[in-house]
């Protein structure tokens, strides 16, 4: 079942979804597109470039899941 499928069937009363992605502190992430993002502050991502320092780990997960970095 894809993450999207899970979300479509989910509701507030359902248990927490499994953690699909966990950011790896040792890995370097690069941006998949050039875009500004608001995380724990505002950051500029540049396609193909390493993501700026300062983005919290929790937000890294979200950026991966949203296909903005890998």
């Amino acid at each position, binding site marked *: 079942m894809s993450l999207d499928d899970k979300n479509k069937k989910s509701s507030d009363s359902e248990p927490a979804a499994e953690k699909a992605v966990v950011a790896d502190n040792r890995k370097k992430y690069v941006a998949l597109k050039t875009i*500004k993002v608001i995380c724990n502050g505002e950051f500029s991502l540049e396609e193909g470039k390493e993501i700026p320092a300062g983005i919290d780990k929790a937000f890294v997960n979200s950026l991966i899941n*949203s296909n903005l970095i890998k």
Partner: protein
Amino acid sequence: MQEPMLTTFGIHQAVFKDLKDPSKWGMAKILGSAEPDLKQELIALEGGSNIIPWNAAPGRASGELTLTIRQYDKQILRFLSPYIDSAEVEDADGEAAGSVTTLTNLVGTSLKHNTTGIASVGLKSGGSASLAPGNYKAVVTGAATIDLYIDYDGTGKVEYQNSDMKINSSAITIASGAGTDYLGLTFTGGAGTIGMTVGDIAIFTVYPPSNYLLKSYFGKAGAVNREFSLTIYSECNGGKIRSTNFPRCVASASTPPQFLENDWASMEVTINVLQPETVDYVAETLFINR
């Protein structure tokens, strides 16, 4: 020498008194006009070739009064249109820090979600100066990103990015258990991995810091017209007082204000003057001093 004439000039104020609840009085002072039209129709007896009626008898009186109000306070709203207590919700002191309503899903169920979506939207501590008031629409653009749209940009706190009324130029990212600050608001992610469904929509409303807040509803269920007495005072000059009292009236006005280009809103109130049960007249005009 002839005595000074009885006359009136201008309009000073109109006073409304609730006939059922004497604790409720209201007034209007910024008035354009108060024009009673109580004249009685005359029914002519016509016949034959005579061009002039043979007789005339009284018909009905119109019993109408038109009031043009240019500024008012909430006390008179109860008189002007069908009213029930719940037709007004007032916060006399306003909200010092502003407020935000609960995020509510409108399309889908993934955006407002306690574990995999946005668990809550709240005021950012110390961020009230950045609040942009209006009705917001949040739309999911990625598993963990949203765009925001707002229906009002009159504060200068936001800038529309397009004609769809999107306001964020950067993707707003929602993270597990973390807060994302934007425009004086904090969007707190649910405890699980954020995974919202693209296209899902949720709404909320932001109120700015204020010192007064009134919601006035027109057409509220159960609302009825109130009966009141109406007294109109003219401008006075040299101690002269001119007033007309209508002991029993009901009114009909469109209380939502008009919004006019480069003009103040005024409200035209149609008042029906009714025959009172307590006195044997429908209007009494008082002339104090010549």
